[in-house]
């Protein structure tokens, strides 16, 4: 259980959270028309006769959108409903040309499923937690009103109108802003693994309606919930919960009651405000869309959907730990995002084959490089780095030299800096820039002898039991060797000379 609590004047309160995430389905065409779904086109350029609801126009389902919803359902281990159908949700608005949204109320395509959020001690999630998913249904997006184009009129852009959305409805299983944030991040990750949604929250490809209620700790009854619409970042989702929970507690403790209502989030102030209450909520008059036959999915279609699923985050993470021997932290970080694991796996393969060892033998080295060294160098260079130079080949070649003891960790970073800046070959850089370790025992021995001679007192202290001074001698030697000495060789010779 989360320990997230609101300290009220009358005692401790807990929060109950459910999320409805709207995820735009990745497809070239809209849910029921052939119009393009491209983002950022000129207004009203991606509009078919169907999207504009011209008289006599009829919807025809786009099989790719259905396929993506089914694959998503499979990725959250959900029941796939072989029979589903579309309903009309009726309301008037200028961004909704048909006067109804085609959605799925009564028979959604995906039933109950679940999603695992990972423990994050620091983030306030003490252990892994399973969040239930109620359903996923497919529906049309609406268009967009533009109020800044004319002094007295509003303009309508129908480009987005009819684009396929998946509405992914969680159970009210989350009890803290951190859990909700983790849920959205994990869901986004799964959607992007599956390729059913690009997860781009800034462009509105993913947005959440946040349902929040509060109750006294231990109270079995749920409180009245509010729904804050269209929240478009993980941080905002967490802010909404934080704000709503506190607002509701204050309200109740001041003798008020929470009204079941729809609210809007104001990004600037980080607060929510009422949009409409239940009393003036629309009566959507849902009924089965008579223009569309029920969707009946065949086993062969489901088999194809299942076969097309990639390895998903949880399975990949487990495999990274068990097969590659990575730490839980590394495994989690590397599998969180599609780009991260893709880069890692490419580099892992390239490095293993460059070095001639199995992947498992180099996995930790590649993981550390991928998670901390490489991003660090990239970040420190800023605009000077050309990301195109960050090829797997170049990085594998650096890791190979490091593995062979030819270069130090510091030299690896320096070489990588030059690679990122100039795109030159790492071996050539190591040679021509003198970025190689000296493993020549003669030169190292000479340097050590000089240091021992110059520091007789310290030698005595060390031999008298002050072990810590070993580091001092290493440092002095490396300094004398201008950092190019192979540390393993330095250690070995130093040990021999000091202890001998």
């Amino acid at each position, binding site marked *: 259980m989360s320990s997230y609590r609101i300290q009220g004047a009358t005692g401790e309160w807990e929060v109950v959270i459910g999320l409805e995430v709207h995820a735009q389905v990745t497809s070239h065409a809209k849910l029921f028309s052939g119009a393009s779904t491209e983002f950022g086109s000129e207004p009203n350029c991606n509009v078919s006769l169907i999207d504009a*609801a*011209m*008289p*006599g126009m*009829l919807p025809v389902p786009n099989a790719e959108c259905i396929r993506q919803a089914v694959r998503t359902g499979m990725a959250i281990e959900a029941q796939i409903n072989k029979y589903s159908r579309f309903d009309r949700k*009726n309301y008037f608005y200028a961004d909704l040309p048909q006067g109804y949204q085609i959605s799925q109320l009564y028979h959604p395509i995906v039933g109950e499923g679940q999603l695992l959020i990972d423990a994050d001690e620091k983030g306030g999630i003490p252990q892994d937690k399973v969040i239930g998913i109620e359903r996923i249904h497919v529906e049309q997006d609406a268009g967009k009103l533009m109020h800044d184009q004319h002094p007295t009129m509003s303009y309508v852009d129908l480009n987005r109108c009819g684009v396929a959305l998946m509405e992914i409805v969680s159970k009210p299983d989350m009890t803290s802003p951190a859990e909700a944030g983790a849920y959205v991040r994990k869901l986004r990750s799964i959607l992007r693994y599956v390729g059913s949604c690009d997860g781009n929250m800034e462009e509105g490809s993913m947005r959440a309606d946040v349902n929040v209620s509060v109750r006294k700790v231990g109270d079995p009854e749920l409180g009245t919930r509010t729904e804050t619409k269209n929240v478009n970042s993980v941080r905002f989702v967490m802010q909404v919960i934080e704000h709503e929970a506190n607002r509701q507690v204050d309200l109740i403790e001041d003798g008020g009651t929470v009204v079941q209502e729809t609210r809007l989030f104001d990004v600037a102030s980080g607060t929510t405000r009422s949009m409409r209450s239940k009393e003036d909520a629309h009566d959507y008059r849902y009924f089965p869309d008579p*223009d569309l036959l029920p969707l009946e999915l065949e086993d062969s279609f489901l088999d194809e959907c299942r076969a097309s699923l990639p390895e998903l985050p949880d399975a990949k993470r487990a495999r990274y730990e068990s097969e590659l021997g990575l730490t839980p932290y590394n495994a989690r970080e590397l599998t969180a995002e599609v780009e991260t694991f893709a880069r890692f796996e490419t580099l892992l393969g390239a490095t293993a084959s460059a070095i001639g060892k199995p992947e498992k033998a180099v996995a930790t080295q590649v993981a550390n490089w991928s998670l901390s060294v490489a991003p660090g160098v990239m970040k420190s260079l800023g605009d000077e780095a050309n990301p195109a130079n960050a090829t797997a080949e170049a990085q594998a070649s650096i890791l190979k030299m490091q593995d062979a003891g030819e270069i130090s960790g510091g030299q690896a970073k320096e070489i990588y800096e030059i690679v990122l800046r100039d795109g030159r070959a790492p071996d050539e850089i190591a040679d021509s820039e003198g970025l190689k370790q000296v493993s020549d025992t003669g030169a190292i021995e000479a340097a050590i002898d000089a240091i021992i001679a110059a520091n007789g007192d310290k030698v005595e202290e060390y031999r008298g039991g002050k072990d810590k001074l070993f580091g001092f001698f290493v440092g002095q030697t490396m300094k004398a060797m201008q950092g190019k000495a192979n540390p393993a060789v330095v250690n070995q010779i130093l040990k021999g000379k000091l202890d001998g």
Partner: protein
Amino acid sequence: MTDFTALGVKDIRDGVAGGSFTAREVAESFNAAVEAAASLNAFIVTTPDHALAAADAVDATRAAGKDLGAMAGVPIGMKDLFCTNGVQTTAASHILEGFTPQYESTVSQNLWDAGAGMLGKLNLDQFAMGSSNETSYFGNVSSPWRKEGSNAAMSPGGSSGGSSTAVAARIAPAATGTDTGGSIRQPAAFTGICGIKPTYGRCSRWGVVAFASSLDQAGPMARSVEDCAIMLEAMAGFDPKDSTSLQMDVPNWEAALSADLKGKKVGIPREYRMDGTDEEILKSWEQGKAWLRDAGAEIVDISLPHTKYALPAYYIIAPAEASSNLARYDGVRYGLRDLPEGAGLQDMYAATREEGFGDEVKRRVLIGTYVLSAGFYDAYYNQAQKVRALVARDFENAWAECDLVLAPTTPTASFPLGDKSDDPLAMYLNDVFAVPASLAGLPAMSVPAMLNADGLPLGLQLVGKAFDEQGVLNAGLAIQQRAGFDAKPEKWW
């Protein structure tokens, strides 16, 4: 100029193909008849140039020795519910007045592809809602028929009243109709012509202004069973743009026409013998049985026990779908916009729809909105859907005992315009015999049987199994041959 207006679809097609006359001569003849019949108010707009251009194309094709289409050289009337590219399409409403589609409905395109041309867009009840053609924004259509000894304008039926009038008055050899709850069959019966509503899904709904999507079905209206067969064949076919379209080949109905009904069983549903049904209608029904028996069919009594619930269920389902289908007429993108000074979006919707829809359309939008409302949905819409399933099951059960159903098309003959316009329930009762086949999605046809004592036509209805248009057409042909119905309205216009 020779007058070709007595000719039907088959005569024209064969005459043009055989070189007896040109398609242009035919088109000119009908264009002139249309122009001379303006007082019937059958057309909202006329398109003589369309008819001529199609005719010229057919004549050129023939001159080049190439194959001609199934409707080559036949000028037809197009119900103004079908969107026609570049030609105003209104659904007889004010809200769509002046709306000119930039696309062609699948059915009309199929007809043009088959070599037909368009005389004009035919008047109808507004958004196909009505049974008398009195709800059009563009005025009532007058039937060409009159009661003996009376000059009162008679109803041509509805909603395809422009279509029935044009065909009965010989100003078009054939016309398209649409049937949601009888809108092809009832007007055909009122005007002494044939009309068939095929199995739901035979004709694409793409580009047809929607009334009630789960019921709407296009079909031909013409003066003979053969003509209906030819034209339906041209109209029908799978359309990937309509999800409810039947993915089946279109049979060659014309070639397979046969009035020999040996081995066929025709069911007579006892529940259609309702109180208030006109004596003469019952007489025509008896006559129909005799004709079909004479054609070799066996007549059997059957039961369709949920018949009496069909009409109330229909008047829930159809308005429910309509209330949603008509939401798109909001003044935002096309058609009428009424934007009072200082109005906001909601005011614009209200003003536009208040101004743009007629009373009957508003009545049905209100009924539909009501039956779908929270708290009423189960009691009305859901219940009506259950009734619909039972009505369909009645027919399924009946097919164990018979191949076809014979019934009257309407409970009465045509009535004078204005007679029922103040009484919506009386008006709705017109569709009592037509609605069950609509709810069940079955092919159904009306063929003229006889004139009543007032000299007005009466029709007989044949309902077949799903996809068995052939069985319906064949039985229709058997009646046609025996009825010998050749009465036509005396020209007064």
